[in-house]
């Protein structure tokens, strides 16, 4: 139980600090919204828009998440607060899971604001009957981005070029999650024009891919984080 209490306290601390400064949330949100506005100007109401809309959505969310992940350990590096945490009698994987949960919360907050704007700009067909599926896709994808990004952010924070290092490490590793997220989102956004049976077969494959990826990388993070942050 104390493991969960430690995670809760760490997440609460991150949320209080972020709500006080809003440095990370503001930059993530502005980036996501600007991307959508620019793509809206570029594609207008062209026929190509339908084909690329799910890709546009995930480009915006992916790079917004990168902005957040780059800063998730910055507070811990200031005044060596990570040392302060490592001095505490807590399991070090609690630090990993708390950071992944904080990243998940911040990314989800940005998506809650950006998704309705994306729908207004880019979606012509109603997918409301399958909105719940889109929410599952977002949740599974956010978990994947957070568990991978937190681990790689912990690695990059100790390097000199940490702002450059995270994208270099992060982008190749999250290709499977990006493909699964884009393909499954595309299925949901065009649900009315696809055969129902085929839709369920395809969406199940992609959701399963996302879930397996999340579990594997959460385990990798849990097992390796202690060694990543140790000198």
């Amino acid at each position, binding site marked *: 139980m*104390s493991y969960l209490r430690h995670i809760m*306290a760490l997440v609460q*601390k991150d949320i209080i600090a972020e709500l006080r400064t809003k440095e990370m949330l503001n930059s993530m949100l502005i980036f996501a919204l600007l991307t959508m506005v620019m793509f809206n100007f570029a594609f207008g109401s062209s026929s190509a828009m339908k084909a690329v809309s799910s890709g546009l959505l995930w480009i915006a969310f992916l790079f917004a998440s990168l902005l957040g992940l780059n800063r998730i350990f910055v*507070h811990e590096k200031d*005044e060596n607060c990570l040392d302060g945490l490592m*001095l*505490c*009698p807590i399991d070090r994987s609690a630090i990993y899971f708390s950071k992944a949960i904080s990243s998940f919360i911040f990314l989800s907050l940005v998506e809650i604001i950006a998704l309705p704007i994306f729908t207004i700009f880019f979606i012509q067909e109603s997918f409301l009957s399958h909105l719940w599926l889109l929410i599952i896709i977002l949740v599974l994808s956010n978990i994947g981005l957070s568990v991978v990004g937190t681990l790689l952010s912990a690695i990059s924070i100790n390097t000199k070029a940490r702002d450059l290092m995270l994208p270099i490490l992060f982008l190749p590793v999250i290709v499977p999650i990006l493909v699964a997220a884009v393909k499954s989102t595309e299925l949901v956004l065009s649900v009315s024009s696809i055969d129902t049976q085929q839709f369920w077969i395809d969406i199940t494959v992609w959701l399963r891919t996302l879930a397996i990826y999340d579990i594997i990388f959460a385990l990798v993070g849990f097992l390796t984080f202690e060694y990543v942050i140790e*000198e």
Partner: protein
Amino acid sequence: MSKTPPFICIDSLDKDFGRRKVLNGLSLDVCKGEFLTIFGPNGAGKTTLLRILSTLSGFSSGSIVIDGFEIKENPAEIREKIGFISHNLLLYKDLNAYENLRFYGKMYNIPSPENRISELLQKVELDHRKFDVVGSFSRGMQQRLSIARALLHNPEIIFLDEPFSGLDVHASGVLDDMLEDFKKGNHTLIMTTHNIEIGLAHANSVAILSGGKIVYSKRGNLPDSDDFKSIYYEYAGDKA
């Protein structure tokens, strides 16, 4: 001198950073209630030694036993016993003083930390600023809060890495008083410093670390600062 087993026992400790050997077969015993000051030139390995003792860094070979716990096998038990004070604050500047201490109280599993937080904030004379964000504090106030953070869980062992570095007169006075309280309270302390006067003022034993090993140590009847300077130059070959 004492027949009881040492409280902190370091045996043949090696620490390498790549090809560079920072600690080279270091052995040292510290008794319960002892206040040991470790002197040494820059790069001698003082900070590395304290980081290893406080479980922040690993080591290449050797063994460390603290209060019967082997450091590699029981790091959590050792972390409950130690407080670490350094020139780094280990505080969150976007949280206020109370939030910082409450957060660390949860990390140390202190059941209801409010009384302890109030007591410590009064001790470091910051109770009137407890709801102010730490980023708005002066460096001296931040250092005082950092001392309160390190003592929150009432540690038996306190490691102090150049604790007086960057302190203003007020904060130095608060730390001086606290060091005397620790001595009376039978805490075990290891402090590293360059300042011979400050180091000798509080300690009841001293050691000189040079070239990655203890080259001189003395327990009780410490020399005065002038004599110790001569000893220091002889063993460390450097001006303190």
